[in-house]
């Protein structure tokens, strides 16, 4: 049986129309942002420059693609239709009459659906891992910069130790199937996932310790929610079975947090050393505030500008790291639709077929580009103030 094709123009139109939920959501969010940009502080200022608009647009595009993935993609990312093997873009699947918009890969799966579903994996792991890395880096970087001395020496040495590891070697050692038989990933996860709980507990305690009406609610909430997620992620013993993570995803997650938190640590440490010489810190010290209050409520809010910019860049960098992991076939399942794995599979067959390689590469590149543009325009806007 011969596969029938639709024309190139129809492929473009088909792709554009498949993304309809994304366009609607984009129009609503961008429109609202434009209308209220005066009231939206830093986020609103992004809409003053072309670079900022493009950056926000690309990031939101992928965010909505990830959210509406099941509506956008015509096929299941893992479903194989034998007749569609290596089919060129625009091939019509005979049974359902739907189109393989970007063609089929060597295992006869729809490249378009895989690209759309791949965004889900990236958009869950990359920001979450960056968030944890930020927590770890901040919680350790603040005291290192504020106290200096021995704490600083020890922590900086440890951070430099991790930074001296070439990332690829670290991944080959930390993300292997064998390591999941050992307690190492779980121990690391146990340590890393503790940091957000510590961070928020200290944050609330230093601020509200003399206000029993607030402190008990906030601390209780932190411990209950934090403990619940902690149980689910580290021990996979969530009593309600909502929080769950696959062992190999946990492994990747831990490795990525491990690789990127020393970078955050260095930035926070540098910023803290700079900010602690300011007058308002001296004023707080004279008032007799505790060191952790000064770190979390005086220094940290004033370091937020560079940290937000760094977080944007870091999400992009984490996306690249995830792609590297996929490219070397580390951690993620071989049939996983993430972009790195797709690039690996397609790049081996470039001599015969190029169409399965292009969608994931362009997707990954555009998402990272969007984040970098966003970071650049954030940096420019925060410099203006």
């Amino acid at each position: 049986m011969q596969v029938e094709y639709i024309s190139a123009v129809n492929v473009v139109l088909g792709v554009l129309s498949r993304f309809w939920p994304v366009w609607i959501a984009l129009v609503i969010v961008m429109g609202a942002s434009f209308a209220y940009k005066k009231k939206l502080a830093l986020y609103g200022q992004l809409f003053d420059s072309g670079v900022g608009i493009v950056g926000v647009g690309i990031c939101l595009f992928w965010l909505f693609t990830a959210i509406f993935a099941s509506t956008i993609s015509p096929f299941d990312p893992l479903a194989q239709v034998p007749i569609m093997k290596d089919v060129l873009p625009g091939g019509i699947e005979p049974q359902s009459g739907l189109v393989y918009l970007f063609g089929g890969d060597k295992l006869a799966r729809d490249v378009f659906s895989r690209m759309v579903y791949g965004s889900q994996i990236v958009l869950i792991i990359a920001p979450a891992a960056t968030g944890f890395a930020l927590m770890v880096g901040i919680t350790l970087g603040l005291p290192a910069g504020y106290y200096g001395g021995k704490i600083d020496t020890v922590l900086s040495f440890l951070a430099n130790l991790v930074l001296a590891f070439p990332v690829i070697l670290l991944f080959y050692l930390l993300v292997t199937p064998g390591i999941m038989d050992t307690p190492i990933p779980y121990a690391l996860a146990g340590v890393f996932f503790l940091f957000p709980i510590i961070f928020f507990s200290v944050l609330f305690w230093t601020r509200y310790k003399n206000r029993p009406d607030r402190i008990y609610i906030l601390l209780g909430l932190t411990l209950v929610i934090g403990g619940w997620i902690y149980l689910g992620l580290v021990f996979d013993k969530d009593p309600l079975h909502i929080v769950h993570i696959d062992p190999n995803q946990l492994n990747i997650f831990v490795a990525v947090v491990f690789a990127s938190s020393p970078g955050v640590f260095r930035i926070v440490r540098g910023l803290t050393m700079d900010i602690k010489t300011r007058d308002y810190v001296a004023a707080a010290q004279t008032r007799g505030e505790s060191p952790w209050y000064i770190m979390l409520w005086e220094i940290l809010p004033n370091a937020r500008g560079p940290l937000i910019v760094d977080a944007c860049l870091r999400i992009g960098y984490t996306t690249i790291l995830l792609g590297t992991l996929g490219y070397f076939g580390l951690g993620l399942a071989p049939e996983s639709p993430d972009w790195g794995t797709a690039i690996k599979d397609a790049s081996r067959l470039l001599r015969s077929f190029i169409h399965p390689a292009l969608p994931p590469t362009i997707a990954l590149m555009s998402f990272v580009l969007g984040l970098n543009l966003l970071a650049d325009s954030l940096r420019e806007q925060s410099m203006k103030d």
Partner: protein
Amino acid sequence: MLSFVIRRLGTMALTMLCLTMIVFFLINLEPNLKKLAISQTEMHTSAEQLEGWLANHGYRQNFFVRYGQWLGVLPKQPVTDPTTGKPAQRFTFCNDPVVPTFSGVIEGDFGCSTKFKATVASKLFPALGATGILMFWVLAVMVPISLLIGILAGMREGSRTDRVLSVASIASTATPEYVSGVIFTVIFASWLGWLNGSAASASQGITFYNFTLPVMTLAIYGIGYIARMTRASMVEVMTQQYIRTARLKGLSFGSVVVKHALRNALIAPFTVIMLQFPWLLTGVVIVEVMFRYQGFGYTLVEAAGNNDIDLLLGCSLVSVFIVLITQLISDVGYAFLNPRIRVQ
């Protein structure tokens, strides 16, 4: 200055000691040893025989003893041949000694590769040479281009040239090697047919045809980053008082840029280029695997994939050494180039 360098070298030695111990620990985890034993013995070997192989080849000694042996502070013991009961060579293909000898990294013996059935040194150093050639061409392409882009962009901040070049460099930092490699291969090898999509033949002889794609792929990610740093540094220098003075003296814009601004603007990019080496290392691994170029990265992947303990340790030692030495050079070089720091 001298005491600073000595102190840094001391920290470096300590860091390398810690890192190699961590690597040693991670490579010698139980599942990895099992995998090694399975790959080194014949098929369908029983669990006892696997255990016997491990014990017989010295993998069951105390962790610190084995680390000491690898390092060369403890003597390497020959294995006992189970049939004759006499001491025998641990790996015959590496000509291991039959008497206890101090033979570790400190003595210059990197051990024995179980995958390639050869000494690590005979495998690692040719690979490093091949990567050295690749690195040379990458730097030769990357540094001039990125400095030029950075200077042109930073010369007149906010101009159209600046905008275009800045967005271009942001785009290049958003393109990791495995993305640009695929895109370049599609354009130049599959579509236009100008270049070879594989650099496997480059081991015999480097030609423009087989070597351009790897060099291009590796350079593009770094170019954006260095160009942005150069631009930032250039922009800062161009706002200085002495530049204004030089302009007001009536010097032409071109001569102000070349004679007054450039020298000072290039201090910061020097550090950045040096610190770029650790990133290049990851890039080298991706590019060498992608274009099948038999260099250091290719060896590292082979070693990691086959659980080749000594070879992987050798690779990590080399890469950690490169990272640390470039950090040292960048610090010393920065102090040397910047008179304000040199005087202190």
